């Protein structure tokens, strides 16, 4: 109900504007001319309706372009993909079963016994990190980034998603969220008086935005100890 307050203030402003317009309009009543006041109103109003109808025609003849270069996807399929990827990652089978979602690979040489692993500037890492211990100590760390498809309103926008940035520095392995890519859309929806009957969500809108599942899969030497400096929440493969 606290929403009501700004609404009411807007209502009051609108009402005052309407009253002021009415007064201003009344003052122009005494203009001389061939047309009477009500005829003038009729003309102006017809002009307004004409403009509206032109817009309707415009919209029909040159409809608003929907970004349709993007593939259509089924959100349910995407959901399943995400869940499956996570499971296979934890089961260690991601290399085989998640190969279609492989986005980027890194290879690092590291011979130390311990490795700090941290997210730069303590930021919250948006990907899940899954660590697999190899069977031997080969001094190599392999990192692979997997991500399932993302979509908005049933359209694939995976191409806009970038992998995170990895850097092996003196004090450890630094992880960093990727640079953000911004996309803006406009969506034209129905008026509330229509939505209440077509069973669309009343206050919400029916855009569906689903993120994919992103996983950073690290394969580390058998005895390497990872020290989680920034609470990344590492998951180890059994």
């Amino acid at each position, binding site marked *: *109900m606290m929403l*009501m307050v700004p609404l009411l203030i807007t*209502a009051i402003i*609108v*009402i005052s*504007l*309407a*009253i002021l317009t*009415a007064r201003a*309009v*009344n003052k122009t009543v005494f203009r001389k001319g061939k047309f009477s006041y*009500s005829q003038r*109103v*009729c003309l*102006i*109003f017809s002009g307004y309706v004409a*403009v*509206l*109808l032109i*817009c*309707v025609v*415009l*919209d*029909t003849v040159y409809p*608003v*372009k*929907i*970004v349709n270069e993007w593939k259509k996807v089924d959100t349910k399929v995407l959901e399943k993909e995400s869940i499956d990827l996570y499971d296979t990652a934890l089961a260690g089978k991601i290399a085989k079963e998640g190969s279609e979602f492989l986005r980027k690979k890194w290879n690092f040489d590291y011979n130390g016994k311990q490795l700090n692993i941290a997210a730069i500037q303590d930021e919250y890492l*948006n990907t899940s990190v899954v660590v697999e211990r190899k069977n031997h100590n080969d001094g190599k760390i392999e990192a692979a980034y997997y*991500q399932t498809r*993302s979509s*908005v*309103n049933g*359209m694939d*926008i995976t191409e*806009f*998603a*970038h992998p995170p940035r990895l850097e092996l520095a003196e004090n450890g392995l630094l992880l960093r*969220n990727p640079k*953000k*890519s*911004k*996309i*803006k*859309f*406009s*969506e*034209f929806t*129905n*008026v*509330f*008086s*229509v939505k*209440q*009957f077509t069973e669309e969500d009343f206050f919400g*809108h029916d*855009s569906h935005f689903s*993120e*994919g599942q*992103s996983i950073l899969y690290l394969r580390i030497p058998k005895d390497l100890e990872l020290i989680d400096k920034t609470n990344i929440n590492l998951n180890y493969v059994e």
Partner: protein
Amino acid sequence: MSLTKVSLIDVVKKQYIYKLKAYSQVFMSLIFLQLLAVLFSMNGVGSMGGSTGGSVELQVKYFSADFVAAFTMLWGFITAILITTKAYRNDDFVFVTNRVSSNLSNAVFLLTASVIGGITAMLSSYLLKVIVYYFISDLSIKSITVLEAPMELLLGIFSTILYVFLFCALGYLVGTLVQISKAFTVLLPAAFFGTLILEGLSGKAGTVANVFDFFFTESSLVLFIVKIIVSAGLLFSGAFVLSNRLEVRG
């Protein structure tokens, strides 16, 4: 000179035509308010944002004629109150009228105004579309043209007309009450805002919220029509009865 006999329907018809001309300034305020609403809607009536893996920042702006419809409902309310004020109400008494015919012709006028308001409100969503598409951003993910969904447009027009008419009925009753006693100018807003505040404080869903739900969440079209017609009918009847004994002063 022989007396003329008149029938109520006849007088109401003549008054209605008279009022279409005499009250024409309300249609100027309609245009103004609707254009204002389109202006307000240009920044989107809602938005959604999100990120994928932190790397995609998505912003979706929603555009619809929601604001225009709401402003039109407000306009209906104001117009109805306006025509109950002395300056307008007494316009009838120079010619042939009685209180019943005056009220009836007012109601028919308000119905006409609702129809005009509802149609223009729905059509303005196309105006908004054109403005946004050609001048603001041509990246769109969803848009429905008239040809694709003509029934939705008609549905929108019909239901918006009903909403505006309901607000007209409410405004007419409020205006009539104020004409009966100036005290209502203070009493009614006080009662309305008081209820709102009390309900807001107590946290429970109160009368205002219930009334809101009663109409705005009704998903059956038939029920909706019945609700509106009955409510508007009651409000108008109340106003008719109350104004029957009003004298023409000043």
